[in-house]
């Protein structure tokens, strides 16, 4: 929907855009976006999805508010970061949990399920 950067070969350091229906968009690295199974598939350049070409993908197939997209992205970053961390470090899951307001948790659950996250 908006301008994109076109690269021939996708690299993990590429930026991709994640959009929401109410106009918000988030730029994240490809690596981060790949946390979500759905997004990974969408952005896969071997397929011919439009999203892959444009390197944008909506957060949810139907309506999804910006806040949901934001939480999704937040999770993706969280996970991507702690995936690589050594076994000695504790993963502060409760921190993330505190940042999820209960008011959106059900929508988030739905979106997460959709995104296979």
């Amino acid at each position, binding site marked *: 929907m908006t301008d994109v950067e076109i690269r021939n070969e996708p690299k993990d350091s590429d930026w991709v855009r994640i959009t929401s229906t109410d106009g918000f968009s988030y730029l994240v690295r490809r690596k981060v976006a790949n946390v979500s199974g759905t997004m990974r598939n969408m952005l896969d350049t071997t397929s011919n999805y439009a999203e892959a070409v444009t390197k944008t993908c909506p957060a949810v197939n139907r309506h999804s508010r910006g806040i949901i997209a934001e939480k999704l992205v937040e999770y993706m970053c*969280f996970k991507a970061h*702690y995936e690589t961390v050594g076994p000695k470090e504790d993963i502060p899951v409760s921190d993330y949990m505190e940042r999820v307001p209960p008011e959106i948790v059900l929508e988030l659950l739905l979106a997460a399920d959709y995104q296979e996250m």
Partner: protein
Amino acid sequence: MYSDAEPSGRRVPTLVQLCQRVAGVNVDCINSLGDELRYDLVKPILERCSTDQLLRLEHASPHLQKDTPEIWRDLCFRKYPSEVERHAVEAVQEPESWKDHYFMLKEAEAKRIEEVGSRLRSQRMEAEERKKEREVKLTDRVPEPKRQRSGGWGGNLQPKTLFQKTRTEASKLQKTIYNSRIIPPMPGARNYRVLPERPSAALPPVPSNQTSRVTVNTVVHRRPLLVSTPSPTTLSSLSRPTPPPLSTSSSSHSLSPPMTSPIASRPPSTISFQSKSPLLPSSASSTVLHESRPFKSPKPMKKDPMSSLFVPKHRAHSQRPV
């Protein structure tokens, strides 16, 4: 369920799991699960609900109801553990609706509690009533007059004349006041003689268990005859050897001179007493012949008759030292 890239030695929980956790914590904030969430997504949330919440959520999202019986079943077992045993042992057929079963169990329990409560209440009331009956109550009635003293049981045939009445009264008085207590001789008790002894009578028998310092020797006591009838010549020959030791002993012992003190059981003592008088004129009347054994005065023979009033009947009530 989560992305294939597994971190080295650590698992970041999936967003789905995290959401379920957060929602489970805030279950009471959730009003409805909506239409879109599948049962398997919300199952962990429902498992954490209470019965009221479960009812509410079911009502809001009817599409979940076909899947909830297992949750109701778990609720039943959690709340009424006896049901678990019942179903395990008897192999009872599964109820049609676990939800209805649950409510049935709940009602049964409430009824049971109500029964027990009412029973306790009635028992308590009864106890209080009984207690109240025993309390002191205020009343206007006068208590019943005392029954006549066993009189007129058979019915007085004739009313008593005044003379007869005074006679009966007097006899009653006599019994209670003027009768001194007669002490019956108890077996094994000491025999106390309380009346004064006549001089010629024998001395009272001494109790053998007496441990006092008084050593009483039963002696035959004859009053010294201060009559000079016996011939002094014969007697003086008898008594001559005796006086010197006697005099010393007698002078060393000074006694109060009751004539009833025991003296040595020697008949010649009386005579020597008599003969002593010219020898020791000063102490003639006062000294009493005795043996050289130390002794103390015995119990006085004459006893106060009034003291008999206070001698207890039974030895156990006596306060005398044993």
